[in-house]
């Protein structure tokens, strides 16, 4: 059983991180993220607007899901060690969805006094739809 943030000497390829689960997202979550982030695109909170654009309902901001993925990475390695964080958006998150973010170590490169760790991660909703994929690099002191 790993403890987080992980220590450099314990990291190995194939390790999984501290999964992040956010249950039953609501329209309120989208509105809170709009207010906190400044992303006021109407498609995320204006139901008639979203329906007129051809969607069944409003959907969450991609950057909200990226925020859930950021929690995985910073819990895993400690924010001061994160060097790179990349996310790609592939599907919408709908009201009622539960988002689960999981990650895996893909590469470990020791240097003189550091260990550079590369990971990939993905966010899925309850019906196993991949809504976000990404990668990150952490530089851990030895």
């Amino acid at each position, binding site marked *: 059983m790993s403890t987080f943030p992980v220590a450099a000497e314990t990291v190995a390829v194939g390790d999984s991180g501290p999964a992040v689960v956010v249950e039953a997202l609501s329209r309120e979550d989208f509105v809170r993220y709009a*207010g906190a982030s400044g992303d006021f695109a109407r498609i995320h909170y204006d139901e008639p607007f979203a329906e007129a654009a051809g969607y069944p309902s409003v959907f969450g901001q991609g950057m909200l899901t990226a925020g859930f993925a*950021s929690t995985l990475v910073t819990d895993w390695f400690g924010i001061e060690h994160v*060097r790179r964080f990349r996310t790609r958006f592939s599907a919408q998150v709908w009201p009622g969805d539960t988002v689960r973010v999981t990650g895996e170590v893909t590469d470990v490169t020791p240097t003189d006094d550091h260990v550079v760790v590369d990971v990939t991660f993905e966010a899925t909703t309850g019906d196993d739809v991949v809504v976000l994929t990404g990668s990150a690099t952490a530089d851990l002191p030895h």
Partner: protein
Amino acid sequence: MPRYPLADLEAQVGTSNVTVRNLRVEGGKVEEFARAIHDDNPEFRATERDEPVVAPLTFTRTSYFPQYRTATADWEFGFELGFDRDRSVHGEQAYEFERPVREGDVLTGVTTLAEVYQREGGEGGTMTFAVFETEFRDADGDLVVVVRNTRIETGRPVGGEAEP
């Protein structure tokens, strides 16, 4: 397709605009942002710490609030790409950190049009990609984080990305 020919877009690659000024990182704002992404790490909770808090990885998204934008930083970050907002989506977001953003930082952002290209999509028709790369520097002029935002104009209405 955007309103302007691809060559006009490509001619702007490598040029830069100052897009963010006086992004003053406040502890209460960091905590509000962390709560909005459901992150309960005490490092982000100004009300639970005496020392300055650090900000979540994606916090520079708050630079889209009008009070931090320069006059030229419209939806296209001051470039003239002619993307149709109703057909544009946010494809990717990437960060390279020199250090975490911290409470007390006063950040300035300079955005470079890093890349423009087109691909034939499936049902979406021709897709045009624009990569905006913003360097955030602190009050000493030191680089803190580089943020790359990939915007895609698709061939059909998708609802639009938020304006900066």
